[in-house]
């Protein structure tokens, strides 16, 4: 995990906005604007004053360097920070500096020159209670300042002790006895042969301000920076000057920024309260939030990736202690693995890959709750069992150049989704094989390395036994998974093949939008082929604003058991991309949109006129068996040898109970296994009030309770519910040995 940790060093979450970068005082503009927008004038004044030292002077002289770098200048007009500063000063009511009764510190500082740079330095140091003496050769401080500016100086020094020696010209430094001296003698002033900094006889010398050719505003900022250098010298006896900050790497996406024209003050004194709030609200708050904008997980959990990184690292550290915290287990198992976070991150931090590694790490340490992935892994095992998998080619040798690899979900949704295109593929090439099995992506998403390798081996062996054909895939997730884990297998999309044969379907009315699955985000050819097939069918379409740059429908990563609310959130977000009905080419996307009530069609629905509803989980299993049986029968003239055992009990399940079973991911065969405990072992209870029986059984990592009635030979399911906690039964109960082992 360490390699992912170091990636975050390039995270730009804390980069300054461009305006702060450009401001000589490095004003925290984000904080200032937030306070201005909400009308907290005194708080905004405090932020401003802390940055500039003398707020009235800075606001008066501010040349608004920030306006040149404000991204709004390319949209409408730069935010008018100068006017906002002035508004802040006129609207703030508590402008007096705080009065602290602190003891004076030891350091003695001499400042030569009572100009704005020297005074800024003097203010910062005297407010930190250093003993400051300012020498001014004239009979007044900076003569170029206006009365209001001089009032500002008086106000800021109101509670500070410092010595101002007017009419005192310093001609040589030897006569002075200080720990540090700031030489700010102004334009054409004497630098006493000090080149910027020097350390002589234990005293530090700094030159700055207009003496170095700086303008007034930069001289002020320089004086504040020198105060920092002097304090460092007093504490450490080392000479350090404020280094120029590296340029901000903040990356702001302005493509979604709304045009709002600059607010024009209604009177000559500047903004009113409402105008100031409105102008502050125009600030787009430049910050790098690409991950927060694009990644559903960061938005849903309201966590920045840096925080996620720390939680993930903490959760994956190996520790046997019960006090060890694993706060990110759900987060790690919620991620859809769509990869949009790393693709849109300006630093390309691979949060998704880190999460995938974390899943493997958690599984290895047995920290993942088994129930999170149990259903999907069982489903994969069933798809790859003798009842549902098939690797066959029509030729007598059993080998082929091309084989259809539909994936396990397509046939589970409706066998016709596999049979119809296979018929067409055979028409084009009579020796097209069929490789029917799960690609093993659920094992990858569960972080189960052992199971993944086993399934990949099986898939590789089947492919080799078929003569290493090119696989025609119908599912982009399968394609992506095969490209990553079995790159030796050549793959082509079914939709590319069909588009090359100029296939078309029946026209459907209205305007539709093609929803590209997240796994096909980089499969441009597949995307184009699906659009060709739609255009061949004379269907009107409208593209999404962001094209294929959107997250997952909620199925990816199979996090819906670990975090059902998050999966539902993703489904909702994707179904709101626009108002049009969608055409999809991933069966999982279709089922998610059906659940969300979004009108949707699979491209195969259009091409082969398939109209179908979402199957129940039990029907999905049955469909897989039917598919294998039909394939064997129709294309190879064979009969299916083995079929799974029929359910032991005939069940009567209402629509409500069926929906509950699907939500709990329970199959009819699961319910029968539980009933067997009650009926065969006699471990059941009876409620005479409503004449119902109740029993429970463990189904791997979950325990299922079934309430039922018996009518003749029918078992009517009244209710069912599950939990993950295990019930611990005692081996000895009342002195007798008790049955504790449930099937």
């Amino acid at each position: 995990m360490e390699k992912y940790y170091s990636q975050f060093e390039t995270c730009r979450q804390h980069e300054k906005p461009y305006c702060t970068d450009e401001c000589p005082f490095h004003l925290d503009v984000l904080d200032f604007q937030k306070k201005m927008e909400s009308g907290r004038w005194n708080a905004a004044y405090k932020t401003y004053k802390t940055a500039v030292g003398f707020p009235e002077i800075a606001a008066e002289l501010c040349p608004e360097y920030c306006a040149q770098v404000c991204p709004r200048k390319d949209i409408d007009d730069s935010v008018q920070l100068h006017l906002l500063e002035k508004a802040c000063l006129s609207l703030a009511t508590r402008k007096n500096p705080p009065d602290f009764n602190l003891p004076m510190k030891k350091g003695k500082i001499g400042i030569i020159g009572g100009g704005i740079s020297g005074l800024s330095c003097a203010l910062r140091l005297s407010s930190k209670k250093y003993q400051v003496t300012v020498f001014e050769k004239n009979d007044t401080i900076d003569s170029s300042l206006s009365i209001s500016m001089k009032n500002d100086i008086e106000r800021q020094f109101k509670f500070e002790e410092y010595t101002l020696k007017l009419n005192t010209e310093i001609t040589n430094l030897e006569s002075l006895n200080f720990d540090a001296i700031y030489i700010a003698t102004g334009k054409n002033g004497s630098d006493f042969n000090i080149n910027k900094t020097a350390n002589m006889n234990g005293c530090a010398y700094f030159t700055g301000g207009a003496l170095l050719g700086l303008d007034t505003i930069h001289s002020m900022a320089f004086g504040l920076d020198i105060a920092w250098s002097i304090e460092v010298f007093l504490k450490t006896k080392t000479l350090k000057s404020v280094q120029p900050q590296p340029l901000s790497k903040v990356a702001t996406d302005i493509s979604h920024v709304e045009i709002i024209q600059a607010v024009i003050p209604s009177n000559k004194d500047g903004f009113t309260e409402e105008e100031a709030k409105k102008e502050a609200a125009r600030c787009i708050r430049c910050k790098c939030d690409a991950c927060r904008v694009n990644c559903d997980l960061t938005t849903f959990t309201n966590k920045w990736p840096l925080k996620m990184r720390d939680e993930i690292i903490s959760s994956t550290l190996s520790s046997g202690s019960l006090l060890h915290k694993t706060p990110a287990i759900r987060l790690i198992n919620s991620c859809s693995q769509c990869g949009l976070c790393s693709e849109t991150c300006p630093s390309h931090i691979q949060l998704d890959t880190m999460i995938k590694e974390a899943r493997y790490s958690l599984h290895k340490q047995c920290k993942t709750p088994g129930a999170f992935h149990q259903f999907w892994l069982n489903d994969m095992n069933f798809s790859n069992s003798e009842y549902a998998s098939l690797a066959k080619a029509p030729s007598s040798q059993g080998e082929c150049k091309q084989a259809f690899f539909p994936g396990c979900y397509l046939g589970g949704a409706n066998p016709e989704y596999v049979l119809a295109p296979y018929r067409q593929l055979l028409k084009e090439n009579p020796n097209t094989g069929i490789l029917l099995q799960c690609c093993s992506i659920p094992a990858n998403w569960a972080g189960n390395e052992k199971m993944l390798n086993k399934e990949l081996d099986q898939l590789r062996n089947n492919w080799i036994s078929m003569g290493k054909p090119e696989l025609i895939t119908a599912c982009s997730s399968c394609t992506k998974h095969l490209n990553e884990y079995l790159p030796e297998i050549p793959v082509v999309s079914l939709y590319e093949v069909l588009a090359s044969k100029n296939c078309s379907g029946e026209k459907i009315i209205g305007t539709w939008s093609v929803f590209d699955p997240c796994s096909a985000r980089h499969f441009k050819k597949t995307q184009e082929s699906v659009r060709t097939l739609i255009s061949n069918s004379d269907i009107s379409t409208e593209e999404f604003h962001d094209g294929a740059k959107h997250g997952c429908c909620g199925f990816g990563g199979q996090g819906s058991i670990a975090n059902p609310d998050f999966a539902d959130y993703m489904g909702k977000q994707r179904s709101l991309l626009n108002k049009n009905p969608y055409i999809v080419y991933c069966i999982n996307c279709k089922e998610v949109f059906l659940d969300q009530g979004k009108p949707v069609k699979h491209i195969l629905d259009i091409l082969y006129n398939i109209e179908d509803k979402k199957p129940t989980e039990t029907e999905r299993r049955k469909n897989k068996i039917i598919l294998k049986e039909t394939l064997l029968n129709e294309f190879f003239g064979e009969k299916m040898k083995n079929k799974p055992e029929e359910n032991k009990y005939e069940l009567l399940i209402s629509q409500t109970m069926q929906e509950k079973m699907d939500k709990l991911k329970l199959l009819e065969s699961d319910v029968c296994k539980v009933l067997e405990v009650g009926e065969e072992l006699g471990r059941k209870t009876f409620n005479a009030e409503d004449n119902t029986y109740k029993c429970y059984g463990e189904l791997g990592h979950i325990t299922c309770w079934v309430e039922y009635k018996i009518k003749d030979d029918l078992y009517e399911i009244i209710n069912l519910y599950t939990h993950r906690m295990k019930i611990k039964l005692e081996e000895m109960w009342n002195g007798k040995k008790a049955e504790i082992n449930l099937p």
Partner: protein
Amino acid sequence: MEKKQKLICLKCNVEMEKMDVQFTYLDRSFHHKVLRCPKCGQVSLPEDLVSGRISEVEKLMEDK
């Protein structure tokens, strides 16, 4: 809240009583008083306990 139901253990033909039962999840143990057969120890959990407190504790354990 748990409903008060008169439940009979069909194995022993006796009424279930409220007794302590141990639960385990993610290497932690808990105990709670639920209906249990005084003779064979069979347990019965009502749905409101499962979807309420048990589900809450499971979530707490998973997010600890």
